[in-house]
């Protein structure tokens, strides 16, 4: 991991270049998860509440719909708790 990033060190100026999204590329925090939230899109009213409350930026808003990125979701289930129509269910990890 550090090998290909080390090349991005700016030796002339003496500063490291930290590429945006580097974490998103290398730190896969999905292994922390005990419960997996699953959105039922047929019941979703697209109110953006889960998107606003997700602490880890794991829910993105694409084409007017919420999408959970399971590579980073840590399974805190805040989204399921705050959803006004309770359309986010959970599933035990590792089944």
């Amino acid at each position, binding site marked *: *991991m*550090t090998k290909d*990033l*080390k090349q*991005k060190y700016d030796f002339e100026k003496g500063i*490291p270049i*930290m*590429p*945006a*999204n*580097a*974490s*998103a*590329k*290398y*730190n*896969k*925090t999905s292994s*922390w*998860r005990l419960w997996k939230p699953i959105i039922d899109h047929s019941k979703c009213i697209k*109110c*953006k*509440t889960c*998107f*606003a*409350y*997700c*602490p*880890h*930026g*794991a829910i*993105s*808003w694409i084409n007017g719909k919420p999408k959970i*990125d399971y*590579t*980073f*979701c*840590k*399974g*805190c*289930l*805040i989204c*399921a*708790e*705050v959803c006004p129509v309770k359309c986010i269910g959970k599933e035990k990890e590792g089944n």
Partner: protein
Amino acid sequence: MAKYQKFKDIPDENLLEGGSFSCAGCGGELGLKLALKVLGEDTIVVNASGCMTLLSNWPTSPLKVPFIHSAIENAASTATGIRHALKALNREMNILCYAGDGATYDIGFQSLSGAASRGDDMVYVCYNNSCFGNTGNQWSTATPKFARTTTSPPGSESHGNALSRKDMAKIMGAHGCYSATASTALPLDFMRKVEKARKYKGLGFVDLLVNCPTNWGFEPKEGIDIVMKAVFTGIWPLYEVENGMMTINYDPGPGKFQPVKNFLKGQQRFRHLTKKDIAEIQKDVDKEWELYRGGKYWQTDEY
């Protein structure tokens, strides 16, 4: 009309992406995400040592904006330096100071007070989890009465923290700058306050109560609910101070707050409380709100 009235007004782009090392259900990271949504791409984040330092460790960063670590006592001074450097370069950028309650209430207070008195233009958000969370739940002056921390443990002689918490937003309001309290349970309210702090010429201070599942002791999913109850029981008053005038943002009226028991019962740090302790906390909260409703916002010596 002010911006951010509905959840649908929140911008789609996330400047804080996944892959950070904060605990699951971290309120501090939620606060940073929301603040960056308001301030936009043209922002420099200055961080005092704390939980959020874990976010951005070279060579990885979940942020799409520059992020500077500073020591725990000088986040505001670092931001002042950046502001002056930007002035020399003729550039306009937002500066967001994101520091914990230990770095704001206790250790970093002198640099923050200096920056506020000088009127340096920045947004200072204190993510307040009411303890030194990163080092393992030590007592800070933001810790509420009777809370358990590792340096104020309950036992036969003690009932946890014996002191009341300091009201930082009032102290910052007395500096003459914009100052407000907010909570992660009400993101739109917080975003409106950050927007106001950004527009304010000078230091804009927002004290943000965040949910901390690790140190408060609850399931991560209950976090938003617990912070919501802190507002609805009156323990965490929401107010703004502008030009020395205080506005209360949420007050349902005398006797209409939920009992403080609702806030205390879900958390392990309050598990040792007796009925007498809860009655004492309730009395303190009632007294505080009596003063607010009587217009005596600044007489903190009475409770």
